[in-house]
């Protein structure tokens, strides 16, 4: 047993987190900043954080992940990091020549009390920021929230620091991407195109973290939302924020700054969340849904009808990030499956309320916890008490899956041991169909593996 010390008996913990179902803010900020074209994320703190965040993102994407650091040593920790950040800005523009430096803080600089707004202003006053270039920032203390919060803070920072309203509205909509993969962002853009609406999607990591092999390393890959697009987001007709934790704060700040009204939706994972997404577009833009999309939807429902016998009543344990696991839970319920245990390390009142509401209505017996000590250790203990047929979560789930000998689907962040998430979406009807295929595959493979010889089926 790999997790041989995990006991069945659940004891309330108040100090110790074991096997967390979350990580820290800056990695989310770094990921979000990579979705801006020509942007170099910068970690304001000591080197370790930056190194860890780059490593984790690199393992997840198997792609270059460029980011710089203020390289604090003890002196900076005592006297403040202003000198380090100013020096870093000089070096970065001279050597790496980005259009934008997106600075995020770390535990260290937050504890010291470095004020990023003041330091970046000083950089600008001192003429350290070349003409036409930008230094933006987001405060991302890791002792608050999780990696999702950091993503959210950076996206909100991007929105407020770039969006401008010229007074003349443009015929376009903002879609603010909650934490999702480059493949998902690409799919969102495709769907918008098929629906016939103009959008500004931000952030957008497609063509950044799924860059093609060309024999050349392109430091600032072709993808990412451009500065012009971001500026114009203040003139959009409305914003659709995909995810109440990871995207809504940006929509709120856009509304405040540029009076762009918004609607918050779930990330369109699964049938009904995608329905709501398509309906929302249709409504806000006054466009009819093309047959192509209706047919895509029909194909997904077709498989749900045809394969329901393999899904019905199957018990699932899942862990991950709020904006992803909320629609996923709904999808599992639509598939007639039974999400039995759910944890998310990311706290969020609205999420908590929404999830509770969904579960109260459709699966009141589900164990659900989010926030502090909502970790994989607890999830595993629940699984030992009430076993499941399927586990869904990030790569760390494989230890539980192996010990308990249950099928496992990788979903969420980080996925360190498989590819696919960067290339094949989970969003939209097509993405949901792929997710469904994965679920069916592992469940049916298990049935094949466990079947007695006389019960082994050819046709299923």
């Amino acid at each position, binding site marked *: 047993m790999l997790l041989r010390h995990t006991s069945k008996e659940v004891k309330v913990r108040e100090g110790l987190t074991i096997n967390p179902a979350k990580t820290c803010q800056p990695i989310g900020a770094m990921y979000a900043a990579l979705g801006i074209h020509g942007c170099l994320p910068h970690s304001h703190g000591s080197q370790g954080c930056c190194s*860890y965040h780059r490593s984790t993102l690199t393992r997840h994407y198997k792609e270059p*992940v460029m980011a710089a650091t203020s390289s604090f040593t003890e002196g900076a920790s005592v006297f403040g990091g202003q000198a380090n950040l100013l020096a870093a800005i000089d*070096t970065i523009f001279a050597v790496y020549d980005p259009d934008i430096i997106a600075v995020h803080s770390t535990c260290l600089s937050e504890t010291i009390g470095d004020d990023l707004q003041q330091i970046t202003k000083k950089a600008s006053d001192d003429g350290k920021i070349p003409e036409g270039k930008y230094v933006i920032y987001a405060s991302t203390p890791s002792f608050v929230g999780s990696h999702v919060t950091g993503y959210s803070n950076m996206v909100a920072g991007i929105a407020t620091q770039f969006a401008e309203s010229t007074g003349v509205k443009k015929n376009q909509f903002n879609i603010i991407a909650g934490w999702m993969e480059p493949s998902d962002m690409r799919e969102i853009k495709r769907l918008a195109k098929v629906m016939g609406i103009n959008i500004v999607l931000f952030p957008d990591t497609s063509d950044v973290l799924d860059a093609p092999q060309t024999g050349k390393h392109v430091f600032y890959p072709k993808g990412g939302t451009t500065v012009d697009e971001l500026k114009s987001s203040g003139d959009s007709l409305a914003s659709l924020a995909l995810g109440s934790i990871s995207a809504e704060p940006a929509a709120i700040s856009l509304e405040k700054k540029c009076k762009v009204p918004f609607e918050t939706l779930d990330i369109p994972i699964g049938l009904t969340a995608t329905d709501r997404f398509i309906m929302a577009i249709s409504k806000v833009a006054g466009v009819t849904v093309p047959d192509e999309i209706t047919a895509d939807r029909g194909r997904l429902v077709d498989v749900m009808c045809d394969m329901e016998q393999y899904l019905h009543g199957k018990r699932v344990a899942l862990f991950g990030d709020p904006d992803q696991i909320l629609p996923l839970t709904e999808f599992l319920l639509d598939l007639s499956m039974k999400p039995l245990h759910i944890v998310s390390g990311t706290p969020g009142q609205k999420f908590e309320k929404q999830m509770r509401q969904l579960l109260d209505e459709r699966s009141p017996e589900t164990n659900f916890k989010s926030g502090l000590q909502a970790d994989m250790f607890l999830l595993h203990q629940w699984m030992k008490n009430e076993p499941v047929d399927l586990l869904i979560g990030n790569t760390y789930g494989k230890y539980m899956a192996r010990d308990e000998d249950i099928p496992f689907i990788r979903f969420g962040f980080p996925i360190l041991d498989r590819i696919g998430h960067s290339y094949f979406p989970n969003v939209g009807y097509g993405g949901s169909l792929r997710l469904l295929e994965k679920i069916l595959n592992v469940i049916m493979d298990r049935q094949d593996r466990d079947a007695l010889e006389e019960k082994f089926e050819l046709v299923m």
Partner: protein
Amino acid sequence: MEANIIIPDPAQVREELIQKYPAKVAKKRAKSIVINDPEIIPEVQANVRTVPGIITQRGCSYAGCKGVVLGPTRDIVNIVHGPIGCSFYAWLTRRNQTKPETLMDANYIPYCFSTDMQEENIVFGGEKKLKIAIQEAYDLFHPKSIAIFSTCPVGLIGDDVHAASREMKEKFGDCNVFGFSCEGYRGVSQSAGHHIANNGVFKHMVGRDNTPSEGKFKLNLLGEYNIGGDAFEIERIFEKVGITLVASFSGNSTVAAIENSHTADLNVILCHRSINYMGDMMETKYGIPWMKVNFVGAESTAKSLRKIGEYFGDEELKARIEAVIAEEAPKVKAVIEEILPRTKGKTAMLFVGGSRAHHYQDLFAELGMTTVAAGYEFAHRDDYEGRDVLPKIKVDADSKNIEELKIVADPELYNPRKTEAELEALKEKGLEINGYEGMMKQMTKKSLIVDDLSHYESEKLIEIYKPDIFCAGIKEKYVVQKMGIPLKQLHSYDYGGPYTGFEGAVNFYKDIDRMVNNPVWKLIKAPWETAGNGKGGELAASYVTQ
């Protein structure tokens, strides 16, 4: 070793590397980029701060302390005191394999423990939460040891992890609790954390169990972390030749072994950078000499085994060592003979770690490949130039604050394993006791040495030298591969290995052959991107409507 390949003029290369930097940065970087001369070894600037804004390979002190040195021992509950991230990222990402003897034996390596500090802990202090966490870990697991690691905010808010540890240790009575002040801002890289870890392990673990260890030839393996099973292969060889491994620091190791390690008669050091302090401290306190060895490379393994044989000076042991080498060699030879024609004459660059960039040059040499440039991520001058420079190294402000333990001979346990005369005799036989000659002596004249290589410099080097393989870590992996050059990770081995000993050498030969000769590198360009097609010339359709 003489290079038989044409290499660019290193002086010019150096100019190109620093050209784009702002003047002050260029001046600083220039001192870390030197042209090697194995005869008169030049000075390399190392273990100094990275310039802010430079994209560096380096990590932090916490990574060196918890991740590298303490992490691999399976039965310590390692609680990271800080916000969640630091513990999360160090969770299982270093591939320290471990093999508990029974299904019941403790193994906490697959677990991640954190106090997950929240804002109120930062504002009002986190010691209380830490103590609760320690208590909960004790109640849940009843481990033999609990270690506490401080991350960046902890030092600043003034939490005393040592006091908290002492208090809990006394309270439990049967659990050793100790803390490390390894905040990420200490020192300039992982290296500070190695030192802090050495101090803590020496203070709180080594020497707690005086039971004499069994065996005739007893040694500790220092600085071997069982990445990819490296320690398993070394253990296999030791067992074959009849050497008793008392403790490994710290791959596949246990608390009990480390606590008993001072009963060994020799320390052999693999990764000099991360563990040399332990060798020195054990020598001073217990009289155990240390010797630098290298089990990376088949020839280096044989050489290291012979050195150990010579140290113990036992004819039977020496004979067994020769017999084992003779037995293992043919397998290795068969593989290298088959592969060599495909790898010979190729070039490599190694920029990694604090000792691997040196050790792996032996394997490349066995493959007939030349190392044209190399450097460490977090080493000190002695790792480059050899320990003779130690007295000349000036301790700067960043390293000053890392405690140097004052060690004296233990009044009861000090027992010099060799007399002065014996040590002299060994030296005469060419055994370097308590010494290390560093990387540069082994590298060719005019090869390039770069310490703390930056991203920018790595791209330049690749453009100029076009090496056949580049060795570094995960952050560099896909950057370099995007340039069409295979990158071998020498921290994680790209999830392969082991690479030590005889079996490891065979694995490495095969992996490098596979990588440098993989057909995929020739498939990068689409057929329509190459000359005579697509852009430029008029395209005529093969089939057209009339």
